[in-house]
């Protein structure tokens, strides 16, 4: 059955602020699912807490709106138990890089085959605009009483350093590119991270839509406005690790880290790093449990007519006195 974009939409009222960057991300996820024609019951959207946490309610697949900072833990448990599911986890930058930073790093090391999208807007919107982990040191967004006293996290750099095997950045107002990135992330065999720059029109008055477009009003008439965002693919950048050679791997990792530091006048979008040579977690499990992929936890038969069918007699024999 061919599914249409509308099949992936729910009729739940969306209460995000007008002009919110989140809309573009939800649309891009729905477009990607439709393009890939993933059966609705074979996909699950997991989300964290905050404005972005509501994402799962707007998409007509299984939807699991979890706890603040913990979305990756729930999502990994589900994927490991049922590897047939297509799983997309979503959350804000505060959710994933503040309260959930430990899980972010640990998830990278595991490389479970799922997609994690961070709605990156530099503020905690739903609690009225406090500074979030990606806001730069010294910046003062609208509702901060004083400038931000913390240095910012570099989400792309952190993902590369933690072991994510697909690391990319999108922009919420470029829905077409975002859809392509989400599709590539879902198709990637391993843990894919997508940092989505997502202006918060209500609380972040610095990184606005105009700012990203380079058309923000400025006091200095001499400054020529230009778009800050550019696409890595247009610059001949090759993010893919092609061979299992340490030298190439290190080169690709370093290149991604260096690119992740670009900010300000030139902000790269697209895929920073992609490595399918490293085995995803399911493959690691299959190395020690040979039939894990054909007979994962969710598929296993555990009883027959209400009686257990697991035979522990050999283990008990070894304890027999």
């Amino acid at each position: 059955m061919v599914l249409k974009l509308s099949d992936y939409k729910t009729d739940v009222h969306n209460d995000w602020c007008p002009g919110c960057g989140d809309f573009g991300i939800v649309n891009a996820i729905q477009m990607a699912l439709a393009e890939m024609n993933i059966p609705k019951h074979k996909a699950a959207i997991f989300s964290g807490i905050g404005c972005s946490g509501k994402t799962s309610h707007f998409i007509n697949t299984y939807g699991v709106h979890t706890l603040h900072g913990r979305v990756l833990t729930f999502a990994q448990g589900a994927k490991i138990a049922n590897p047939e599911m297509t799983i997309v986890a979503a959350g804000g930058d505060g959710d994933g890089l503040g309260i959930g930073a430990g899980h972010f790093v640990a998830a990278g090391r595991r490389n479970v085959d799922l997609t994690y999208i961070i709605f990156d807007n530099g503020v905690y919107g739903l609690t009225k605009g406090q500074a979030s982990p990606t806001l730069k040191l010294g910046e003062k967004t609208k509702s901060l009483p004083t400038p931000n006293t913390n240095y910012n996290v570099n989400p792309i750099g952190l993902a590369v350093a933690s072991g994510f095997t697909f690391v990319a950045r999108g922009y919420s107002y470029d829905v077409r590119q975002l859809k392509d990135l989400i599709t590539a992330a879902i198709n990637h065999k391993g843990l894919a991270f997508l940092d989505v720059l997502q202006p918060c029109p209500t609380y972040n008055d610095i990184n606005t839509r105009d700012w990203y477009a380079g058309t923000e009003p400025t006091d200095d008439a001499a400054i020529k406005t230009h778009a800050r965002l550019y696409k890595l693919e247009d610059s001949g950048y090759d993010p893919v690790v092609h061979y299992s050679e340490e030298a190439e791997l290190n080169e690709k990792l370093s290149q991604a880290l260096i690119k992740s530091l670009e900010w300000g006048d030139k902000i790269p979008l697209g895929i920073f790093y992609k490595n399918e040579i490293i085995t995803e977690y399911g493959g690691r499990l299959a190395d020690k449990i040979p039939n894990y992929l054909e007979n994962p936890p969710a598929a296993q038969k555990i009883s027959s007519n209400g009686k257990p069918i697991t035979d522990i007699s050999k283990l008990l024999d070894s304890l027999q006195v």
Partner: protein
Amino acid sequence: MANVDISWQIGGPQGSGVETAANIFSRVCARAGYQVFGKREFYSNIKGEHSYFTVRVSDKKIHSNVNDVTVMVAFDAETIFRHANEVVSGGAIIYDSDIENIETKDVHTLDTYFKARLHKYLDTKKKNYTVSGFLDLVKENGVNLYPVSFRGILDGLAKDTNNPKLKGMIRMFNVLGVSISLGLLHMSSKQLFESIELIFGKKQKIAEINKQLANYAYNYATAKFPNFKHSLAESSKQSDTILIQGHQGTAFGKMVCGCRFQAYYPITPASDESVFLESHEILEINEDRPGSTVVIQTEDEISAIGMTIGSALTGTRSATSTSGPGFSLMSEALGWAGINEVPVVITLYQRSGPSTGLPTRHGQEDLMFAINAGHGEFPKIVYASGDIEESFYDTGKCFNFSDIFQVPVIHMMDKFLASSVVTCKRLDSTKLKIERGKLLDKIDTNDYKRFAHSEDGISPRSKLGLENGIFWNTGDESDESGHITEDPIVRLQMMDKRLSRFSQILKYIPKEDQVVSSGIAEYAVVSWGSTKGPILDAIEMLKKENIHIGFIQIKLLHPFPTDLVKSFLKNVKTIIDIEANATGQLGLLLKQNLGSEIDHYVLKYTGRAMTCTEIYDSIKKILANKEQKKVILTHGA
């Protein structure tokens, strides 16, 4: 067969093989047909601190340790300083003769507090602060001393076998200590060799050397110490008996009842269970391809519970296993499982708190915490096992309760159970049932709602991946589909739906699974969890003196089986509450739910498990003096 009831204890620095020694000794006794109850005590330390193992051996069913030690083996001076006083008159101390001149000040792991108490004691007895000073004292008390040059034995063996390498193999002191003990106790050596073979099994060379040493030391003891009055010579083979360790009961339960996913973060005393599950991750399935338990070591306990819930959403029976500090971290997610009606099992191996507390010691301090964990009001079950054998069957029940009522279940275990080694009847999987409640395998309609109202308040449950079964979950209040709502009336309906689970639970769970009572008399002990063993043994001791005490073991602690407990207490005049905590938490529950006042408390919170001797003594004390409101127990180093 004569009445056999001896207690054997071995001590030494952590890492010196105390555990292996106890393992061999327990196995030898069990194979010889005796009942065994062993328990390990250890510091939060990898190497060097004092650790000891006490194994009680009897020809009758036993459920606990006693205070008195019959035979003690000391690898080091610290064991003498800490335990020599526990050895009973007519008992024995086997020790390395090289340690006789060691003074308390030479033993750096002997902490100041203990040293001060010991010095004070030795002063009153006019003894010097050396091993031989202390041993003089116990000798005066009728204890037989058996100094053995451990190195001398190794030298002898090295010479006999023409293998000079053996001289330095002090790692084998453990086998040496066990072999001397068994010789002293007149036990046949056959079981000793078989047990060494079993334990060192795969390492043939090591097994061989150890057998040579065992033979040499055993013969040394039988030749040199032929007249020790206690004996383990007689025995009879028991059928269908296994020697099982504390963490294995719940682990086997999980395998058999179909738990296929466990996430955990390392913590004492819970992680042995997860490691055991992972060591045996591939499972044999009757008439089917192999199954498996996927065990994930997570970055913290928050992740462990999150992954467990995620896995449970796929319809997989899923669990996590932890101790107090880890459970504290899990409490937010517990509420999420509660509001989303997700069946998960949390095996809670309690230890002493608060905070890190005594990380390797025992306690039953988390009853109230387990009941009240998580903010807001939601249904959950708190269920406690009394011993290792019970914990196997209870694990199966916990998963059934969890599936049937779609609630998180907290299965209360503790350090005492975790670090015990006991003989018990071979576990019988055919006694377990698997009931999955309203879990669906197929949905034909297209109007499925995960939280649909129903007569019993429990909705048919879909799982991730099921066609037509799409649902939404959220930690927010939600409607029948699982979408967020703040509507006051829907809120009321959903709260009532979830909380109606409490009465369903009390109605459904068989009474004998809720509360176990025996010998109800004018006096009754009420308790929960691992105190069961020492209580049963103490009651048996009192029975011999014609003192009859009833026992009410409460297994279902939340929701509380008020009416059932009330009916058991109807004719009881005096209630004695026995618990391993300082505040008498079960007593508080009885007060809350029944309005019953506890007449007497027997409490222990030193971090050491109760012995039956202590309970026996305290009940006698209470019977003799009704004014004794509270007895605080302190036995154990």
